[in-house]
């Protein structure tokens, strides 16, 4: 074989190897570019859907005040002048504990999400935790010392506290505050005979912004904090500034009803024959807590519900799958809340 042929073969091998390496390099580079472009498009697409849900009142614009299903899903307050203001009833109807809540299927279809998983979570900006430190009984009265901590994203914040004690035929309120370490203490005294079902409602208002007002409920009889209301005796459904009751018991009698906010307390005007009563529109930057007590087959009960009915986490379970979360700070009735809208990945 002549030397020139050998060199030509060697040269061809070099150029072929270079071409193969180049092809592989271009393929991997272009694949990264294609993936990034797809990801950016996906994020923009999902962000636009989330923005629409937050900024649009939906159709009809008052779908929150009735039991109807919207034709277009949006949870913004209609005709609002406040940016990112949500409708109290639309948000309440997203909570599955409410009898008027819309189904996940309706949320999906009216959002025009055909094959994308959806999740909506609304939470209070400031977390309030209550712990019982001690209790003592003397002269027919029981005293509880409660430790109350306030934090935002696990960072302690100072807040002023307004606490209500609600027990059988007993109402009281007291004020306190948490320091810069986020810790405060409250001493509660109630008649020992009224301990069953007694609860403490704690409202906390951040020192730097009165729109950051949160609540927490502490059950004194079993010394636990209740994050969601129970519905052992009846279900309380706040909607359209009316509180409706639903129960399976024919022996149940409602005796009293109260509504609490950070600064105010008022009795609910309950008619024994009616299964609903009006919720007063209290002018206060605070969530409302309604407490109803009564007797069912001789058993005294006391139940509560918040309005708007938050916190809640509704929709798909994203564990083990792709989750695109879009967080918003929103206003509901003058109070700031955190809204997280989650979507699953787009099917290719």
């Amino acid at each position: 074989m002549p030397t020139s042929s050998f060199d030509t073969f060697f040269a061809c091998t070099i150029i072929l190897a270079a071409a193969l390496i180049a092809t592989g390099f271009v393929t991997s580079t272009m694949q990264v570019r294609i993936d990034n472009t797809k990801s950016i498009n996906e994020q923009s697409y999902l962000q636009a859907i989330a923005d629409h849900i937050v900024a649009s009142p939906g159709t009809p614009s008052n779908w929150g005040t009735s039991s109807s299903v919207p034709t277009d899903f949006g949870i913004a307050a209609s005709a609002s002048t406040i940016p990112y203001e949500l409708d109290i009833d639309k948000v309440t109807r997203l909570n599955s504990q409410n009898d008027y809540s819309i189904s996940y299927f309706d949320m999906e279809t009216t959002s025009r999400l055909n094959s994308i998983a959806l999740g909506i979570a609304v939470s209070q900006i400031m977390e309030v935790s209550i712990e019982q430190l001690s209790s003592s009984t003397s002269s027919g009265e029981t005293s509880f010392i409660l430790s109350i901590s306030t934090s935002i994203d696990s960072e302690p914040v100072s807040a002023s506290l307004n606490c209500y004690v609600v027990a059988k035929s007993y109402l009281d309120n007291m004020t306190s505050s948490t320091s810069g370490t986020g810790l405060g203490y409250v001493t509660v005294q109630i008649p020992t005979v009224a301990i069953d079902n007694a609860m403490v409602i704690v409202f906390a208002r951040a020192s730097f912004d009165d729109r950051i007002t949160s609540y927490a409920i502490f059950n004194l009889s079993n010394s636990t904090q209740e994050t969601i209301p129970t519905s052992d005796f009846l279900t309380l459904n706040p909607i359209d500034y009316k509180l409706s009751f639903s129960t399976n018991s024919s022996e149940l009698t409602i005796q009293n009803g109260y509504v609490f906010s950070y600064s105010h307390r008022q009795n609910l005007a309950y008619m024994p024959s009616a299964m609903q009563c009006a919720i007063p529109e209290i002018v206060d930057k605070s969530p409302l807590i309604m407490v109803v007590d009564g007797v069912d087959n001789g058993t005294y009960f006391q139940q509560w519900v918040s309005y708007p009915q938050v916190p809640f986490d509704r929709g798909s379970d994203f564990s083990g799958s792709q989750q695109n979360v879009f967080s918003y700070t929103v206003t509901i009735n003058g109070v700031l809340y955190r809204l997280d809208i989650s979507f699953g990945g787009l099917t290719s």
Partner: protein
Amino acid sequence: MKLLEDKRGVVRVIEAFLASMLLMSCLAMIPAQPNLHDSTGNLASTAQNVLLSLDSNGHLATLVDNRDWTNLKNSIESALPLTVWFNLTVFDENMHVLNNFPICNGGAVSNSVVSVDYVCASQNSVYTIYILRLQLSQVGST
């Protein structure tokens, strides 16, 4: 020995080598695509949402009026997720910096920083204009 002394095909090898170098250098000039994924678009939207929501009742402008930088920091911090770094700079209408100490939650955690300018006006009779520049960065982004 005869093969080693015959230099007639060497030029072709040199040509092929140069061609390969040219090809490789062209590929090396393709700019690397930054991994944009989700952070920048979302962060800009988050920054606008936070500023608009917090200032819905003139709260931010009131804090700036009072030069209450601590509570301004607390307000911004409360509205942002824990995984987001922020730095807020307050300017007057002539773009002079008003805050005399940093309003932030630590040092920048990423090179990918999103900046949003927001104009607000005080609620008092003077009607002072302020420009708030909020810079955000996602912890863990490149």
